[in-house]
């Protein structure tokens, strides 16, 4: 095994991103979809931090980006959950396949 470096991390983050994407595309439960989204955001953070560490360590752009993304993720998750809860109230279900009243 070789010394792990930037490319390893990038591989992990990309993989996570697409794992999250796959989950987002296939999970039927809204909350699990939300979880997949969290995976996506995390993979991005990993990217930022890795780039900051190995490529552009002079400034802290990557780090701060990751930091703020975490904050945004929290806010987004909060609003999403609020919406999901409300949806549960109106639909008695959080199955995404059941919320397709509006189409065509």
């Amino acid at each position, binding site marked *: 095994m070789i010394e792990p470096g930037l490319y390893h991390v990038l591989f992990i983050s990309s993989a996570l991103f697409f794992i999250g*994407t796959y989950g*987002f*595309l296939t999970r039927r439960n809204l909350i699990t979809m939300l979880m997949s989204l969290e995976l996506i955001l995390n993979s991005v953070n990993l990217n930022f931090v890795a780039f900051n560490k190995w490529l552009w360590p002079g400034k802290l752009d990557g780090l701060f980006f990751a930091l703020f993304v975490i904050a945004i993720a929290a806010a987004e998750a909060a609003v999403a959950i609020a919406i999901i809860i409300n949806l549960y109230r109106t639909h008695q279900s959080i199955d*995404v396949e059941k919320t397709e009243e509006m*189409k065509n």
Partner: protein
Amino acid sequence: MPNTILIALILLLPLAGFLINGIFGRKYIGKLAGILSTLLLLASFIICLYTAYGYFYQFGMVDGIYQKIVPFEWNWLSFANGLVLKMGFLLDPLSAMMLLVVSFVSLMVHIYSLSYMKGEERFATYYAFLGLFSFSMLGLVLSSNIFQIYFFWELVGVSSYLLIGFYYDRPSAVMACKKAFIVTRFADFGFLIGILVLSYYTGSLDFQTILERLSSPESSETGMALQASFLGISALSWGLILVFIGGAGKSALFPLHIWLPDAMEGPTPVSALIHAATMVVAGVFLVARLFPVYAISGPGVLESVAWVGVISALIAALIACTQTDIKRVLAYSTMSQIGYMIFALGVSGYGGGNNGDIGLGYTASLFHLFTHALFKALLFLGAGVVIHYVHSNEIRDMGGLKKKLPVTHICFLIACLAIAGVPPFSGFFSKEEILYAAWLHEPAIFFIGLISSGITAFYMFRLYFGIFHSRTYKGHETANHAEGGPAILIPLVLLAIGAATAGFIPFGHFVSSDGKPLDMPFHLRFSLAPVLLGLTGILLAGWLYASGSDRPEKIRLALGGFYRLLYRKFYIDEIYLFVTRKFLFNIIGRAAAWTDKNVVDGLVDLLGAATRGLSVLLRGMQSGKVQQYALYFLGGALALAFLFIYVWK
């Protein structure tokens, strides 16, 4: 010099009649319309007389040649390429003679109609139309410009249309006027193209210029026009042929004659005026107008003109023998006589030549035009009286009217004799000249003409005996069924006098192809044949029809198929019907309409339908499922990335 204003008045007076009667007649003038129009026309006639007199005797002749005088021209429309459409007056022997014929016959008809059309609901309109016709016809004969002729040509056509369709509530009249207009229109199409051809090569529309440039073989225009060819025929010939087609349509020459018999649906005086004396000879007039060009630059065309004329003469004469409607008989007779005039032109040459033999046909033709106008108008007006009397056009409803209508009888007889070519009536002289000219030029034409002349005598007297002799009149009699008042009789008598005596006019002195007076010698030995043949025809008709025997019936049965062929007018109408209805309407028209509805329209509708269809087809894309949306998102991003990273660099 001629007085321009007076010449203009010749036209303007009838036009005024048209406008006044047309606009105010129905409401305000009513019964006075006839008198008004007649007075206007009388004035016009007097001016014509004065002008013609002036032309022939005072200022027309210079150095022994009658000049072409253009006292007035107005640039009506000048095109950028130097062509000018002018409105003007051209005075020459031809137009002066025509002025007289037209205005005189028109005046007679005006007077005659005062009584004949009395009580018509659209009395004023009738006179308005007559005024329009007189205006257009006079304008036509005075035209100085070939486009001007076309202009009035069409106007004449439309007034003819209006007058044929005067009894517009009769479907047959509507059909007839339509037919007349369309058939002549078809011919005019040729005329129009012919004008374009001629004007292109001459660079002018004036008769003077056209004649100058095209009738001398040396001129560059003629050379060019002869050089350019299409389908092996020179452009000049094309032009002349096309112009002649126009004339043939108006003059009801074979095969464009089919409208003329039907045109008899119009009031009888109208038939006398338009479809016997004036408008139908316009074709003759047109060829005569351009005669130098035909004779010098297009002898081949002139040859075919002669043949068309003589065939028309024969065919019409044959058909006339079998028709039972007196107006139709007269119509075919008209056609036949115009055939005479045309082939006379066709056999003529330009100029005088030895003994004036070369240009004889030209003069003879116009002489016949002149005399024919008189006796044919007389025949029609007489027929009008008869028809009024018996309320029918059919010969079988008539017979033995000699006593009832004495004046008419005499006049009709004179006209019949004139047309049959019995000396000393006018027809004899003109016809004799025509036959002589034909004899000099082409014996075949002469013989056909001769036979037709015999037939003419036969059918005219068949008509005469059928109306006035044979049986005794069995119709009911009432007081008002007399011959009619002076308004009817005066025109009859005047025309009869003319028909009887016009032959003695030294016509060649006035009208000739090159303007030089032409002596027309009288060939006694030559005229024996036609006269004898004519008399034979008369006797034969008398033997068959004078006593109302059953001989005609037997002959009819004996002739069988041939009779049918004649009776059905050689089936020409049917052929036309077939071509128009089956071909033009059913095949081309319907196909075009179908194409428009289904192909052109259909394509547009299809485009709409396709758009809507595509819209429905794509509906699945908007599935309402958020994950599918994301999948599309991902797919789109992927596709873009793939496209712009690997494919499009």
